[in-house]
């Protein structure tokens, strides 16, 4: 049995198809990453799974409840951190948590126990009674995370939880998520634009583009799935004219780019190509001025599957979309 099961899920806004027939499932205990360019349909997908937007067609089951027909059971099983900041700035951290606990119908005795514990878990005990308008971006995010867990959900949805945070806060949020997942036995579904984060933390990653699934696998397998496992960046002094051809003839080389003395070589076996390259250079009396070997990153995977780094696209309109209110992220 899966915690999340999506079958041929589709969402249209007028003529615009935001999610176009997605199917996948998430196992219990996974951290499942959703990657994709702006406008790819990630947020719409999350909103359908969290009962905020009804699907046009297809089915989605969360904790084995249908998101349309058993919406309230779904809501009871999930914690959601939407893109927008949904806590009250004027209220204190503790008040915000208390109000949400009441919205989930948690009785007073249990509230008194769980709220201090949650504040402790997200390192906000010290600031519990301060209004959150005084909080930094990272502290607000941590509070939102605590808020999403106030009713002890099984599945946790986070839409770009680290957008707009400084690198230190980003690391803190991710470490916290990894710890909470372990301690609370959560299944986490998260969207992000930061490839390094996704690489380190996600068990599996789905790359979504144009509302469709472009790739789905573990980060390691995704990186292995694209041609060339390593990139060699080499500069030479005194390289002859046909030097690029010599490089192309080396074993395991997939592609060579560059001219004169500077080359970028894609290879399926970095170490072997490096050894052969040094050998060839010595034989031809060419000096290697500098050399670096890099592994393929998730960035390369992303670019490979979506075909672009940055793209302008129409977004699915949302009820909460307004030009007058600033939001944390602008993505989908």
């Amino acid at each position, binding site marked *: 049995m899966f915690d999340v099961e999506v079958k041929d899920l589709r969402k249209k806004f007028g003529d615009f198809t935001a999610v176009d027939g997605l199917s996948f499932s998430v196992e219990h205990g996974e951290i499942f990453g959703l990657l994709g360019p702006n406008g790819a349909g990630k947020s719409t997908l999350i*909103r359908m799974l*969290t*009962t*905020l*937007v*009804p699907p046009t067609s297809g089915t989605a089951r969360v904790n084995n409840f249908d998101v349309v027909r058993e919406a*309230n059971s779904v*809501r*009871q099983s*999930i914690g*959601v951190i*939407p*893109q*927008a*900041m*949904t*806590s*009250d700035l*004027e*209220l204190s951290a503790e*008040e915000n948590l208390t*109000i*949400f606990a*009441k*919205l*989930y*119908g948690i009785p007073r005795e249990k509230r008194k126990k769980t709220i201090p514990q949650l504040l402790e878990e997200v390192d906000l005990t010290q600031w519990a009674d301060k*209004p959150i308008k005084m909080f930094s971006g990272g502290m607000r995010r941590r509070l939102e995370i605590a*808020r999403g867990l106030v009713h002890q959900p099984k599945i946790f949805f986070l839409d770009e939880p680290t957008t707009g945070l400084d690198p230190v806060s980003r690391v803190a949020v991710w470490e916290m998520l990894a710890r909470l997942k372990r301690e609370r036995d959560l299944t986490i579904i998260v969207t992000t634009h930061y490839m390094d984060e996704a690489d380190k933390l996600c068990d599996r990653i789905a790359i979504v583009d144009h509302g469709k699934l472009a790739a789905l696998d573990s980060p390691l397998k995704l990186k292995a799935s694209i041609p060339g496992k390593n990139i060699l960046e080499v500069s030479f002094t005194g390289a002859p004219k046909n030097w690029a051809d010599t490089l192309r003839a080396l074993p395991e080389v997939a592609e060579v780019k560059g001219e004169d003395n500077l080359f970028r070589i894609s290879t399926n076996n970095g170490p072997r190509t490096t050894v052969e390259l040094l050998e060839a250079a010595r034989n031809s009396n060419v000096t290697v001025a500098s050399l670096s070997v890099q592994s393929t990153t998730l960035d390369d995977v992303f670019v490979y599957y979506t075909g672009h780094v940055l793209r302008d696209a129409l977004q699915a309109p*949302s*009820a*909460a*979309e*307004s030009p*007058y*209110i600033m*939001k944390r992220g602008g993505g989908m």
Partner: protein
Amino acid sequence: MHRVWAIIERDLRRFRRSPALMFISMVMPIVQLVVLGYAFGGTIKNLQVGVVDKDHAVPAIKLHEMLQSVAVNAKTFTPIYYSDEADALRDLRNGKINGVLEIPPEFSRKVLAGANPRVALIEDNTDQFAASALAGNLNSLLPAYNAQPVSPRMSATATLSIVEVYPYVPYIQFLLPGVIVLAVFISAMIGGGIIYIDDKARGLHEGYLVTPISKFELILGFTLAGAIKAVIAGVVLITVGSIIAGIPDPLNPLRLAKMFVLVVATALALISMMFLIMVRVNDPLVPRAIFGMLNTVLYFPSGAVYPTQSFPQWMKVITTVDPFTYAVHGFKQLILKNTGLMAVSGDLLFLFCFTVLAMAIATLLFRRTL
């Protein structure tokens, strides 16, 4: 019900932390009460009347004496004497004086002969209020002028005796009921309109929608939270307003209790109306843009500032469906006439039915998704 209270609690806690909003919703109506109350309510004084006497005989002099006595006592106008009619008319057109009283030649002869003597008032009718005050004052002067030095014991002239049922009601007191309703309206507009849409646009509602709260609980929570804030504004106005307007025994507990019932009914009706208007709105500019229009359309046709009997037919239609009308009528009964609740039961019934209907339609239109 726990969930409804959570929404109310959240709203009231926020409200308590931003008293500026509270202040705005009460100060505007109080300012209006004071400024409009004194601007329109006072008696008109110190008008300038040019007097051109072409007669100069004793009956004309008797008229001069009466004008002088008005100038000294009631001070409605001061006579300014002109020898040339053309000068007086030029000053009238230039706005230096408000009217010209002309005593024609032969006036005295006609008075003594009993041959329909007349004086003429040439008035600047661009200012209706000053003109009618002047005409009214001079009109009431003439019967005194005409009165016989010794009146006959039995008069055949029919006269009107006026009996006022209530103590004198200055305009500021007439205005107070409308201003109380206005305070409740502004509070409903801010709480039920502007803040509601801002919260929605900011994504705060998204936080509610992912919890297992029902559609009805959400609407009830929003409505009650808004109504409580509007009631607070109303309570301040029924007490502070009564004191400012000079209502006799302003803090009479029984009357305040009756007014409180009406404040609650008004708040519920106006907040549910606001919610019905805003239920499908997402743009934070909308409530701000329609604020002024709604205020004008609801406040003025309600009879709060001018009697509804003078309205054209189309405006009377608005008057009939406007919850302001019934609220204002009810407060007039309670404040100006100190009646019991029975006298306002019709108003309370209308406001109650209006609330139920508006809430029902709003619930039907409300979408529990983004």
